[in-house]
């Protein structure tokens, strides 16, 4: 299948005009596969961290959502230990009007505001609910440990 124009356009726009704190570059051998780096947002436990993600655009994109996964270990109630992300727009709330940029911005926003009420990593969410400060501290430790180059 030829690469849809839309994907080429998005790739070029991501390179030419990247969103602050986000970079995404596609693999040369597979233009549907992106290496993503998201900087931990300020005023979040992940501040100072550099988080690597992978993003894959399935054949049906934009009719079906991109697949996004954290490669860097992260202590977050909505991200499990395999790096899978619990984000509605990556699942049932996907809309073809969304794009790579908006998805990554949403992931960045998720780092700023963890939502322990809709957990993916139950133990982390429990921790977050019971003792938020301690959880945040752990998150900061993890960020220092795993997300700093």
């Amino acid at each position, binding site marked *: 299948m030829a690469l849809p124009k*839309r994907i080429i*356009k998005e790739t070029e*726009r991501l390179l030419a005009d990247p969103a602050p704190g986000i970079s995404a570059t596609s693999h040369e051998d597979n233009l549907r596969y992106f290496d993503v780096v998201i900087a931990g947002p300020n005023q979040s436990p992940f501040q100072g961290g550099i988080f690597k993600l992978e993003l894959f655009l399935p054949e049906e994109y*934009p009719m079906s959502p991109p697949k996004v996964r954290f490669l860097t270990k992260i202590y977050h109630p909505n991200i499990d230990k395999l790096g899978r992300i619990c984000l509605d727009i990556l699942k049932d*709330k996907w*809309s*073809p009007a969304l794009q790579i940029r908006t998805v990554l911005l949403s992931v960045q926003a998720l780092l700023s505001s963890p939502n322990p009420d809709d957990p993916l990593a139950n133990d982390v969410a429990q921790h977050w609910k019971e003792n938020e400060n301690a959880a945040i501290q752990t998150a900061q430790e993890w960020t220092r440990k795993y997300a700093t180059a």
Partner: protein
Amino acid sequence: MSEGITDPSDWPIEFKSLREIDSHLRCPICKELLRAAVVLQCSHNFCSECIRRHLDKESSCPACRVATSTSQMRRNVALDEIANNFGDCRSLLLNTLMEAVQPKPVVRPVPPPQFVKEESMDIDYDSPQQKRRRTSTRITNRNVSSSQDHTDIAMGQVTLDDDKDDDFVLNHRDSSPLRHKGKNVHRSTGPVLRSRGGRAEQTLSQSSQSSQADERHEPTNLTKQEPSLPTASDHFHNSAPAPAEVQASLNSSTNITSSTITTSVASIASSPVIGPNLVACPICDKGIPEPYTNTHLDKFCLAGRTDPDYTVPYSLISKQPASVIALYTKQGTSTRDVVPDTNSSLTKPGTPGRSVGSNSSTPNSPARQSTMQWQPQMSSNGTAPRQPMFTPKPAAPEPKRIPKLTYSLLNDKQLRKKLQELGLQTNGDKTLMAKRHAEFATIFNANCDSTRPKPLSELMKAMQVWERAYEKDLEVRETQRRILDQQQQAQRQIHAAKEAKRQAKEDAAAAAAREAAMDSPGATPPSSQSSNGRSTFVPNQANSNAVNVAIASASAFAHAAKYADEYAELIAEVRNRLQADKEKALANTTTTITAEPAPPRSAPSQ
């Protein structure tokens, strides 16, 4: 941006508005300029094809998630035209702009000639003034006092003639119905209506684009006009609706204009039947006599040319009082042979010769497609054949869409029939047929929404491309499946070989233990534990082999087979030795061996 890839960011940053316009003319789904724009109830616009594909999966607006469905979407004709035309001039405009920006940054972007609408107020107190201009022509707004007469009008005509603007002038006096004079010049589209009493002047240079809006008002006009419409027999000496004065004025005006229209007369002299019952051409929207429709369509509209004889939009004519129309007709025919209007008015202009979608370059082809449905309506109105029919052009009836099917409720035969009806391929299994039908329905229905529909042949070409892509996709899937199968098979064989080898080792170990036991009858035989421990090495090795083999999937089978062969040989060898050992042991000893050698396993089946 690379070739063929356009984006709002192409526009220089100084022209933020152009970026905005560009982005608003894009489909949020495909990010291309809107093609066959449709609007949802939530007022979000999309390409027809994109939103149809989306609504196949989900019933909500991609932009705001409000629940919606295909039945709720409507064509957005104006937006579609804007997007089309913007797309047409985009690269030119961008280049011009870029060139202009280089030397001096402040340049006003001038789009290519478009239609400019102007509204101006006149001194007249009772007649609304409306003036539309084409930028390419110049029509002066004149007030003709009552003292000025035909001469002035004639002068005005000359001016218009000089401007190469083809229009006809209707003089309308408040007290008396009308005076008329007109002319026909090629390229002209607009009539000039002028109140001779110095009251009002209405200049309408109407393009076919703008005519649609006017048509909405037609029905009311129509009802007023119909009773006074002249019949075919008396349309030249029409005295019932128009007073004698009109005739007089008509004659004089005809005289005056005769000189100005000679050029056009030459070209129209051979033109056919003219009757008073003008109808709107379904394609160019000009008022044409009904019996002449076929000729008009075949010779001009479908050939992409402008009919020099009939250049006035029907919507304008139909708004005029009946006598004006009669005059217009008269004007059109003044120098021609008048063919009596016979029953030919009953002949339907929709002939089979006009095949649907045969001429893709004509921009108005949806209208053309719809003529079939439209014409019968027209003739049904004309109960009295001679009665001029001012059927308002209905909002172009939408071409028939392909209805959605519930594929699970159809059997293969029914589905095949459906495809056959659409002229599609009927090969493949039900899944393929259903997919094919769905794909064609999507692109066909989307094409129906376009203001620039593609001909059916192009859709068929698109379907062929789709078929190839589907086949290729299927092939890729098939290959993937085969590779996966091979890998699994190879792994199974390796596993079997591994098992066989392990067995062989165990046997060998057991045999060795037996031998040892025989050599020193008091010693304990080696535990099975140790033999197992020794043999674990082999599966590991085999495992890594298996991984390698799995990766080189194509050669995996052969690889595995080779290994299996080797193992089989090994096993056979071991077995033979074991057999020999056994025989020896049986022959030699009183059996004190506790660990019976396991019966040799059969070689793995190939």
